[in-house]
């Protein structure tokens, strides 16, 4: 217990510390409030809360991608949780001797045992994390320079370490001063007793006071520091996880051209409020860049840098924003460069990996939208693709009247003649115009015919799904494409739409509904799996040898389809698939997503080469793909590396068609 003077000093310190804490939190809260509205963040609150508990309390958010680091972080996390409560006892002790929230009894004893153990684990955690950060120096936290060279982590690690140490020493001194009764179950605290053995009561009192004050002052310093640093994630992280989008990764919001005149994000005040919490939640851990195909192939983009740069930017502009003024400078060029936003393949690996559920892709795409639609600044290679989408509704600008030319020599029914079918087969641009894509279409047509499926294609009436336009920010062109397709779909009767391309699959299924197009869409892997399990197609041949499967981002991470392609490959090859180290949710992009298919890849390594090497290392003779863009990228990569004799790539439809008698 402190004397009156001590109590007053303590109260003043607490007042100052919490005051500074709340001032900064309030500032950030007000900054978040300057964001644009975003309604879909509060639905299903129980489910959301459940997810927060499942991720945060268990620390799975941190453990799932980095088990060891994650467990160490969990030690620190639980230390933090326990010590938040322990601090109340600590302060209470200043006003009443032996104060405890739990009074006296078994629970109180257990509590002290818990804190005792947690303190030690927390020390282990901080030491591990400090060694990792300052001696092991993994790329995830040291690159790219200089953004990751902040002293914040050193301050926080020292404070946590100091907190635990002063707690143990303070309690140890109390044991000596009060006696054994104080420390029923405090094995680790007891271990500090010999360090102070033999000291006089006077010095012990001084030492005890010193540890006591150091502990509480560190707590209060920490409180002031948290909202100013990336350690604000303590608060923002769980909130951000609660508010995460329930839409598939990277699903974009519609731009209403009738209502708005500013498209995308030019200035930082055009972000939605949830985006701003993202910026405040990023803790610079680098899990995103560890899995980012752009960063891994030495391009300018690192998803965490986008988040941190925007945080810096919004804080830099806080005076303007909070007084209702426009930001002094736009986001692009000074805070984020064109090379960064255009390098993104929208693969979604960053969002999958992010422990605080940051949504990097929508942020990057909103920046692309403004660059594309407001500033007219975009990679010039996209010019012909846009013209093609506009005049011929395909990015290769092939005559729209030749869309169904691939069917020559095949029996492929046309919707205009059939009028009503079970499956409307949306072939897509790659399947209609790209030579390799056409081979997939032919194989799939062969299977559908043989299985007697009721289906038809749209032929010349089909248009691009709009994915290439939407992912590069040309929302206007996307909406043109989408509306045209929706009008065409309206003319016919069908139960489901089937696509061979995950990009068409995703956008028809998840993004057309905002424009009045609601369909049951299946990917050809799902239909093939169904045809095999129902015995409609028989697989007798096997000429593929060992096979590995490459998950397309838009099929896998975006839409959680992992099992169907694998099951049909197993059925076709009558053997297990050899998995690549990065598979399923952790699959590594082929490099073609996000409109990258139609842009040059001049910086760094080629993404498809990295993936081809990974596939080759499995020893498989064939890579199975379920996306025409992935197949193209693999095919190019294999040819460029000159390993055609060792590795070939085939779509699952081709593999099935080959395996049919």
């Amino acid at each position, binding site marked *: 217990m402190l004397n009156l003077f001590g109590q007053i000093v303590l109260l003043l310190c607490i007042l100052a510390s919490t005051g500074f804490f709340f001032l900064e939190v309030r500032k950030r809260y007000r900054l978040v409030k300057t964001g644009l509205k975003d309604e879909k963040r509060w639905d299903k609150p129980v489910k959301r809360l459940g997810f927060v508990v499942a991720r945060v309390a268990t620390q799975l958010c941190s453990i799932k991608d980095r088990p060891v680091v994650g467990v160490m972080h969990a030690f620190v996390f639980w230390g933090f949780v326990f010590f938040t409560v322990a601090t109340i006892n600590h302060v209470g002790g200043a006003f009443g001797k032996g104060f405890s929230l739990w009074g006296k009894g078994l629970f109180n004893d257990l509590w002290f045992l818990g804190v005792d153990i947690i303190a030690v684990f927390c020390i282990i955690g901080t030491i591990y994390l400090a060694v990792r950060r300052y001696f092991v120096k993994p790329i995830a936290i040291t690159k790219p320079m200089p953004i990751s060279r902040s002293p914040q982590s050193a301050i926080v690690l020292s404070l946590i370490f100091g907190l635990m140490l002063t707690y143990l020493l303070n309690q140890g001194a109390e044991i000596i001063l009060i006696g054994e009764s104080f420390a029923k179950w405090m094995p680790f605290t007891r271990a500090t007793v010999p360090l102070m053995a033999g000291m006089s009561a006077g010095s012990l009192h001084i030492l005890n006071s010193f540890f006591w004050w150091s502990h509480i002052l560190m707590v209060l310093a920490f409180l002031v520091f948290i909202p100013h640093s990336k350690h604000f994630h303590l608060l923002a992280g769980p909130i951000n996880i609660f508010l995460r989008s329930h839409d598939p990764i990277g699903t974009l919001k519609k731009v209403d051209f009738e209502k708005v005149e500013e498209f995308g994000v030019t200035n930082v005040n055009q972000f939605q409020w949830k985006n701003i919490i993202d910026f405040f939640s990023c803790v610079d851990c680098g899990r995103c860049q560890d899995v980012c195909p752009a960063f891994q192939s030495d391009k300018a983009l690192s998803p965490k840098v986008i988040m941190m740069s925007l945080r810096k930017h919004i804080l830099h502009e806080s005076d303007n924003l909070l007084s209702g003024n426009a930001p002094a400078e736009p986001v692009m060029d000074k805070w984020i460069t064109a090379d960064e936003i255009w390098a993104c393949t929208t693969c979604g690996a960053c969002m999958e990996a992010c422990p605080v559920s940051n949504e990097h892709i929508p942020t990057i795409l909103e920046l692309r939208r403004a660059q594309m639609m407001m500033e*007219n600044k975009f990679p010039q290679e996209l010019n012909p693709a*846009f013209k093609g989408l506009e005049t011929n509704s395909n990015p290769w600008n092939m005559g729209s009247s030749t869309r169904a030319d691939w069917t020559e020599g095949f029996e492929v029914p046309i919707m205009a003649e059939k009028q009503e079918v079970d499956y409307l087969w949306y072939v897509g641009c790659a399947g209609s115009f790209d030579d390799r894509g056409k081979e997939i279409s032919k194989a799939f047509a062969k299977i559908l015919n043989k299985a007697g499926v009721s289906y038809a294609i749209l032929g010349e009436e089909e248009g691009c799904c709009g994915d290439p336009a939407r992912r590069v920010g*040309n929302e*206007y062109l996307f909406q043109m494409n989408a509306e045209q397709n929706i009008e065409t779909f309206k003319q016919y009767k069908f139960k489901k739409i089937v696509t061979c391309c995950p990009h068409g699959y995703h956008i028809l299924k998840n993004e057309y509904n905002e424009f009045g197009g609601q369909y049951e869409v299946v990917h050809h892997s799902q239909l093939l799996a169904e045809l095999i399990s129902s015995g409609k197609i028989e697989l007798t041949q096997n000429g593929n040898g060992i096979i590995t499967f490459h998950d397309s981002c838009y099929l896998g991470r975006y839409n959680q389809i992992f099992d169907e392609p694998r099951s049909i490959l197993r059925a076709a090859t009558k053997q297990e698939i050899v998995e690549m180290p990065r598979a399923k949710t952790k699959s590594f992009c082929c490099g073609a997503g996000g409109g990258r298919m139609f842009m040059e890849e001049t910086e760094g390594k080629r993404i498809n080469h990295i993936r081809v090497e990974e596939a080759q290392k499995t020893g498989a003779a064939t890579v199975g793909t379920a996306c025409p863009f992935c197949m193209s990228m693999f095919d190019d990569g294999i040819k460029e590396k000159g390993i055609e004799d060792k590795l070939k790539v085939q779509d699952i439809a081709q593999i099935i068609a080959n395996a049919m008698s």
Partner: protein
Amino acid sequence: MKIIVCLKQVPDTEANIKIDTNGKSISEAGIKFIINPYSEYAIEEAIRLKEAGKAESITAVSWGPERVSEALKTALAMGVDDVLLLKTDSYSVDSFATAGILAAKLKTMEYDLILMGKETIDDGSMQIGPMLSELLNIPCVTVVTKLDVDGEHVTVKREVEGGSEIIETSTPCIITCQKGLNEPRYPSIRGVMMAKKKQVTTEQVSFEGENLSINKLSYPAARSEGKVVGEGADAVAELVRLLREEAKVL
């Protein structure tokens, strides 16, 4: 400096061209129309001159049926200031008659520089520029790949067989644009939205003194398939023989 850009709307390069039942024109059913690619160089060059502070206004002029408004709207979206459609019921195959309707209107307008494509990809006569210059009595330089304007002084580089020539002239003049002059921009969506709201000024005109008409259109002869002579070094002799005796290119 005031610039006038003359542009034409033409069928898309990838369009599947079918002759109409009358045998004298092409069927427009299912055809997508675009701005003539050479006209795009003219539009782009005009916009660049304006962006460089060398031009104060750009007016795009076109002729043809109502659908041409779309092409003019695209020009607006790219960045021209005003557009004018000289509405005609059809197109004329007579370049002089076409140049005539343009000249009649342009005589009533103010301009220092007229930019247009070196030819259109539909009829490809390459005549409108020189004919218009005669009718307006101003100089014309054709097939230009580089344009420098310095006040009234105009320096251009034009393509000639096996090389290029630098020509100097002065405003007012007509420049017909060739590929290589610039890389036309994709119209910004903001521009597209603004263009949507703008009206296309339209004036009804008619061709006068047409001396040419189409009698009959026919498809080019189908190209014969390629021939694989053989493989490896043994096939070279046969290939050379065929190139010399059958194809007569050696």
